[in-house]
């Protein structure tokens, strides 16, 4: 990092103003996150104090009217839907980025990328609506009722493919051209060029794309609310309906009072914790396993 603080040659008033306003803005951006977290803690405090964290895992079920607040089924719902979506969308997104770069003719590649960019811009409620009126009835004909973990996974997959594909595309475009030339000069086939040169050098970028997709899938609310069935239960197979933590908040928040409301904030806090846990786990993995290529 370059610090201009001690640069005596430019002690102008403009520089001074800029440096302070930039600092203030940076402080605000960081402060916002702290504000959100402290708000979550503040709102969920009544539940943590009166109900206690343990009961969120040991109560018989989720039934706020009867003061029973078990969250585990919804945690599983969130985790399974997200994991399923990542398992499907990561290979699809990365492979389609590779296809665009190394196999598709330029015209097709450009058109395809524009389409994926459009896909990324579709609002989630539209995905949810499409899922509800098209995808769910199709699954329902096969295995009723149709609203299920599978429907959630498929919708989430569609939603995060663009993220993963576009980030992968951008990082493949940044592979130093010298690497590719050298590999070609050494007589690498296209397949082994991709497998032995491109993928190892872009590992970090591909991984970042997957992380972004993961975060979007974890936080997605409207689409999963519409297709997952929202029954509070730990699914035993793909066709069981599930309720995610986010859907639970969206379904019940506007009607919740007192402890019920605080319990919903606890599930929000839990979701936040889940995101932090996954991101820091992934960061740890990245630092341990991945060699960052020198620029």
């Amino acid at each position, binding site marked *: 990092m370059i610090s201009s603080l001690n640069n005596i040659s430019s002690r102008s008033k403009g520089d001074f103003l800029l440096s*302070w306003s930039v600092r203030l803005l940076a402080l605000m951006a960081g402060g916002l996150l702290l504000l959100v977290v402290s708000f979550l803690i503040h709102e969920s405090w009544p539940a943590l104090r009166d109900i206690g964290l343990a009961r969120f895992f040991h109560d018989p079920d989720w039934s706020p009217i009867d003061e029973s607040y078990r969250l585990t089924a919804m945690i599983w719902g969130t985790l399974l839907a997200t994991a399923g979506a990542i398992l499907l969308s990561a290979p699809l997104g990365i492979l389609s980025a590779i296809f665009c770069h190394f196999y598709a003719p330029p015209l097709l590649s450009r058109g395809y990328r524009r389409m994926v960019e459009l896909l990324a811009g579709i609002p989630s409620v539209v995905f949810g609506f499409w899922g509800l009126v098209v995808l769910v009835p199709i699954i329902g004909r096969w295995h009723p009722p149709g609203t299920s973990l599978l429907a959630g996974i498929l919708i989430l997959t569609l939603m995060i493919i663009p993220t993963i594909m576009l980030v992968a595309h951008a990082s493949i475009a940044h592979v130093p051209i010298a690497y590719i030339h050298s590999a070609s000069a050494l007589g690498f086939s296209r397949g082994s060029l991709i497998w032995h040169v491109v993928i190892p050098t872009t590992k970090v970028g591909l991984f970042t794309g997957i992380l972004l997709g993961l975060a979007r899938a974890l936080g997605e609310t409207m689409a999963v609310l519409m297709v997952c069935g929202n029954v509070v239960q730990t699914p035993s197979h793909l066709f069981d309906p599930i309720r995610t933590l986010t859907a639970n908040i969206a379904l019940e928040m506007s009607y919740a009072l007192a402890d019920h409301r605080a319990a919903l904030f606890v599930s929000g806090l839990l979701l936040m914790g889940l995101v932090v846990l996954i991101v820091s786990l992934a960061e740890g993995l990245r630092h341990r396993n991945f060699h960052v290529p020198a620029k």
Partner: protein
Amino acid sequence: MAVSLLATIGVIALCTICSLDASLAQAEGHKLVITGSSTMAPLVAEIGKRFETGHPGVRIDVQTGGSSRGIADVINGVADIGMASRALKSQEQHLHGSVIAQDGITIILHRSNPIRELTDDQIRAIYTGGVTHWNQVGGPDAPITVVNKAEGRSTLELFLDYFQVSNRDIHPHVVIGDNEQGIKTVAGNPHAIGYVSIGTAQYDATHGIPIRLLPLQHIPATIETVREGTFPLSRPLTLVTKSPPAGLIKTFIDFARSSQVNDLILKQYFLPLQG
């Protein structure tokens, strides 16, 4: 430097808060805060807009949060008027309720389902898991998809109350939020059963959505039977106040009960007091 900057921000913030306070105080007496049932909020907001045009200087502030919040806010004095999409409970009799319209709940099936009527006991058995296939109640050989409402909704409360079941005994396959989501779910699943507001259901059924409204106790689920008060599963939309309405509050409630807002009530698929 940082200190003076912070101080400046602090002063600005303080000034903003003070001026906000002042403007709030100014508007007092000419502002009505109304909170409660999300079923009623869109309707009351429309009524409020029309009221404002007839009474310049008055502001009607409508917020949702469910019938229970409306009642709680009125008791706590946070709101001037509460909206409850149900009759007042026995422990709420110290409050004052004024009915402004009626709403009914209907059981809906997919239109391709040959079943034309179910008894209350059959519906109860379907929702509590005693009946799991349509052929047990005279329908096709297919598993029943039970569509239930999410907790806290007054539609769910009314349904549970009428059929005398606890939400814990219901084992749904799909839990929905609003009426439209319920109708879309049933319309997309030939073997589903659900319950939604009659106004919305009747509108959708007459506009090409493949659902059927089932009669209850042989009384057809229509806007007319709800208005006559003969349909068993119906509810009054009530404006609640802490003390007998007076002043601006009374003017507003009288306005909401008058025929001047009938068109607004019908537009939301509810039923006005007068035909």
